[in-house]
């Protein structure tokens, strides 16, 4: 009886440790290297860095997608957070945030609750500032969310109230 129960407790302990290790483990990140070209739909459950070329769609709604400085993307990008350092032609939909770094060159439409545009970024397209978020129970007004606007040249640029959200007019710009 005693001997039988001992192994059980021994087995249980390393399992718990494994769970702890897994939860502490950094998120997996996939990389599309500079020499890689992909045509089609990319989907998955890990963060993605694109330094190569992608045409199609990228859908990683729970993850971070970074278009690196060497990245050239001609695709609609759907992700939790989208960070652009390279070139994108297509719409960027961020569940949480879209960030255009100062090296970014984007032509398309942006929809996200928080949008960060660094001075120096090139952008042609639309940004929808209308919230589809929770509504004020009394007046029915949209609830503003926060947009961060950063400028490396002018660090004083700051955070403001922003009713940004998902767009119902995503094709207003030719993309």
């Amino acid at each position, binding site marked *: 009886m005693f001997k039988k129960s001992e192994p059980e407790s021994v087995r249980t302990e390393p399992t718990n440790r494994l769970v702890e290790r897994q939860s502490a483990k950094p998120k997996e990140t996939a990389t599309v290297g500079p020499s890689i070209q992909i045509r089609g739909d990319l989907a998955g459950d890990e963060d993605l860095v694109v330094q190569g070329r992608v045409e199609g769609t990228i859908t990683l709604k729970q993850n971070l997608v970074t278009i690196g400085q060497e990245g050239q993307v001609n695709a609609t990008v759907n992700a939790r957070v989208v960070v652009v350092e390279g070139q994108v032609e297509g719409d960027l939909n961020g569940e949480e945030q879209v960030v255009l770094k100062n090296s970014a060159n984007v032509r398309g439409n942006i929809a996200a609750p928080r949008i*960060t545009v660094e001075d120096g970024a090139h952008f*042609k*397209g*639309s940004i929808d500032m209308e919230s589809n978020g929770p509504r004020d129970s009394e007046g029915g007004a949209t609830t503003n969310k926060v947009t961060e*606007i*950063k*400028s490396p040249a002018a660090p004083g640029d700051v955070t*403001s109230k922003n009713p940004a959200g998902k767009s119902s007019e995503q094709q207003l710009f030719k993309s």
Partner: protein
Amino acid sequence: MAIASVQQAVTANALGKFDFRSPSLEIICGHLAEPRKHSILDLGTPFGANIEFFSQVPCTLFVEDLYESLIALPPPEDCEGPNPYERRVTQALAHSAETRFDLIFGWDLFNYMHCDQIHALMKRLSGSCRSGTLLFIMISTAPVIPERPAKITVAHEGLVSYESTSAPGKSNPRYTPLALERMMPGFRLLHSFLLAESMQDYLFSFG
């Protein structure tokens, strides 16, 4: 048309960076305070401070960043056929022709545009305007202007922050209000105010 000398430079320094109050921008802010969703076209470079400013009102902001894609291009050659400026404008603009705007911000870009460029641009944009669409531009009266458009941002309601990003060295066309109206069929001048540092703001209305 109301013309007033405002001359309210709040701060200035030798680096070509200064802030001043723009009465035309104050009028625009009054329009933006109306509780509805606005459709705004920014012809200039997307500066974070301006996106922040526009984000305070419900709107769809369209950014065209026309300097590199249109204004800085060399003049068209004969082989480009008739109406080369109009074709270039069509190529440069990213928004669809069906889009309608309430407000258009031209900042100081017109100082850097040939009159044919302005005419072609505004002819194209007039199709995207409603009756009452407002156009905000800033024209320099100085004979020489910086080589490139300045970084002009809205610091606060009606308060404009102007920062040169290049040294003076370009001859200024110094368009007059009458010349501007001729270049922009359908637009009429509502207000013009003299500002600091040889700048003048203009507010046009369509229709």
